[in-house]
């Protein structure tokens, strides 16, 4: 029986999951908004973060909160390397090339992970107990994951709107040529943006282990790619903070639809929720291709 308390509980869980989804998507819209490159291998960076979190916990005993910092650093470095090694050469060329390039890079990360750590799923539990919300147990790790995601997004906001580098990035979004004329090093901004975007994505991967304790495997990123695309489209694709809000909305929708699908008993609710994600992408693109949250 569905009580009002249960619906509220599911919604709160959705908000926590949603802030995490928001963080996991911000990198995607950041890259698209600034470099005009769609990271079609997005999910693989989430996967790398999850592995970093796993190995830090298994080998060093570090909790995901600490390893997410390391994950950010790894993603940041990867972003710089990727920009100077590959992306800068295809920038401004046909869209097809950068799409295929990122797609191939994502596959490459998956295969490297499979080669190094095998395809068998791994997992770990950072047992902190749970808190009681309206009589339902909610794991404390998820609460932490949601709050930390929100804090990271806040830091990004402060960085973009209160620092010189942040202003440079925003000026390039507005007008790359104008920014260059005013003395902004556009190429440096591109590299920095990709580094930040991938840093955030890999860090979100580390935090993902707070929500799902198992199932860390090379191909775990694919559902994240689909989901991130759905969320980014919902938020208008080019706006990072639009994506964050859309992620919040999406977390709530996903949790509620999972609840309804379990009640309605139509097939496997887990797979059906993933199918609905794809259906939602098409629906949003059909109704409002510029994004639901954009004016």
């Amino acid at each position, binding site marked *: 029986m569905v009580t009002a308390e249960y619906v509220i509980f599911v919604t709160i869980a959705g908000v926590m999951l949603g802030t995490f989804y928001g963080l996991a998507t911000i990198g995607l819209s950041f890259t*698209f908004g600034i470099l005009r490159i*769609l990271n*079609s291998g997005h999910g693989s960076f989430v996967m790398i973060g999850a592995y970093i979190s796993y190995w830090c916990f298994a080998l060093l005993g570090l909790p995901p909160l600490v390893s997410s910092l390391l994950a950010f650093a790894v993603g940041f470095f990867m972003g710089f390397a990727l920009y100077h090694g*590959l992306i800068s*050469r*295809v920038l401004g*060329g*046909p*869209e*097809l*090339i*950068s*799409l*295929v*390039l990122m*797609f*191939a*890079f994502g*596959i*490459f990360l*998956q*295969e*490297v992970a*499979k*080669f190094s750590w095998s395809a068998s799923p791994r997992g770990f539990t950072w047992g902190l107990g749970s808190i009681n919300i309206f009589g339902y147990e909610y794991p404390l790790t998820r609460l932490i994951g949601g709050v930390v995601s929100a804090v990271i997004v806040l830091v990004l906001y402060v960085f973009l709107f209160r620092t010189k580098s942040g202003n440079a990035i925003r000026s390039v979004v507005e007008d790359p040529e104008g920014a260059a004329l005013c003395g902004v090093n556009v190429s440096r901004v591109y590299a920095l943006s990709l580094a930040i975007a991938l840093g955030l994505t890999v860090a979100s991967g580390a935090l993902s282990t707070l929500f799902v304790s198992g199932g860390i495997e090379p191909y775990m990123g*694919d*559902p994240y*790619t*689909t989901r991130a*695309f*759905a969320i*980014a*489209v919902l938020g208008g*694709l080019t706006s990072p903070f639009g994506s964050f809000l859309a992620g919040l909305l999406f977390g709530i929708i996903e949790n509620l639809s999972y609840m309804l699908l379990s009640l309605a008993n*139509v*097939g*496997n*609710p*887990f*797979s*059906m929720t*993933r*199918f609905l*994600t*794809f*259906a939602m*992408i*098409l629906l949003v*693109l*059909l109704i409002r*291709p510029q994004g639901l949250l954009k004016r």
Partner: protein
Amino acid sequence: MDIRTHRSLIILFLVSLILLFVRVGIPETRQILSILFFYIALSEVFNLFTGLTLYVCFGYVAFVALGMYGGGATIKYLLSASSPPPLAVVLACAFAVAGILALILALAVGWISVRLKGAYFAIATIGLNEGLKNLIEGTGIWGGSSGLVIANDLIQSYNYDTFIFVTSELADYLIFTVYAVTILCIYLVIKSRLGYGLAALREDEEAANVMGVNVVRYKLIVFVISATLAGMLGAGKMIKDVAIYPPQAFAVSYTVEAIVISMLGGLGTVTGPVIGGLIYGVLKYVLTVSFPGLQLLALAPALMVMCVMFPYGIVGWLRRRFKGSKIESLLI
């Protein structure tokens, strides 16, 4: 009609026929050549849309998988009758259903997605694969996550010898037929009004639209044609494999391979995928034999290098190398 205007197509068909005769005559080449025909056909199908429009569809394997499911389910359904219809009827129905299902899916997805530009189109199609896979696993249709196997149905309805003939001989010829039809289709599209419209679209979509090219309709037409052919290719693969399981059927490697072959040979050309497919097929065969399971690890960096250094592929390079000469006119 002057036959010389179509000599490049005729040469391509002659080369394909020679390969087919090699396959018939030398049994040892059977395995590698049937892989080759499948991959070249897959890339031609992919090229028919992505090469001609420069819009990337990451969900191609979904159409192939849907064709495999549609074909398999049709065969299973027809053979469950008390007196199974003749083999030719069963196979024809399998191909028809596979094509129709892929066509319907392409119309539904394409109707929305071809209105979108560039990256937005890729977003609309990247989830296609995952979406269809989860729909099948979630609702449990066509065997759900346990897969669809038709081997027993074929053996029981006919006999073991027929089964062997169908899966190891006939299936290859069916795939070859799809391959030949696809080449003919892409050739006809390139030479038609549609092809010129698409060429204008590739250069500048806005300008083409202003000049009266109905870009949305043109994109939708080639998307649907190529998806239907992909579905039929799936039916051929189903008859060859006689089984399908969601994780393998929706494996992303097919999409990667189709992109690699098209880009290696040359996007938007008819000869490109054949040249790319020949090189790739031989490489893959060698790689699978010596390093099983690692082909994607080698393939992904190769694709990255191709994107950065040779975005126009072998045919594109040859065309520039022999610009103005007779060879260029042969490289369609």
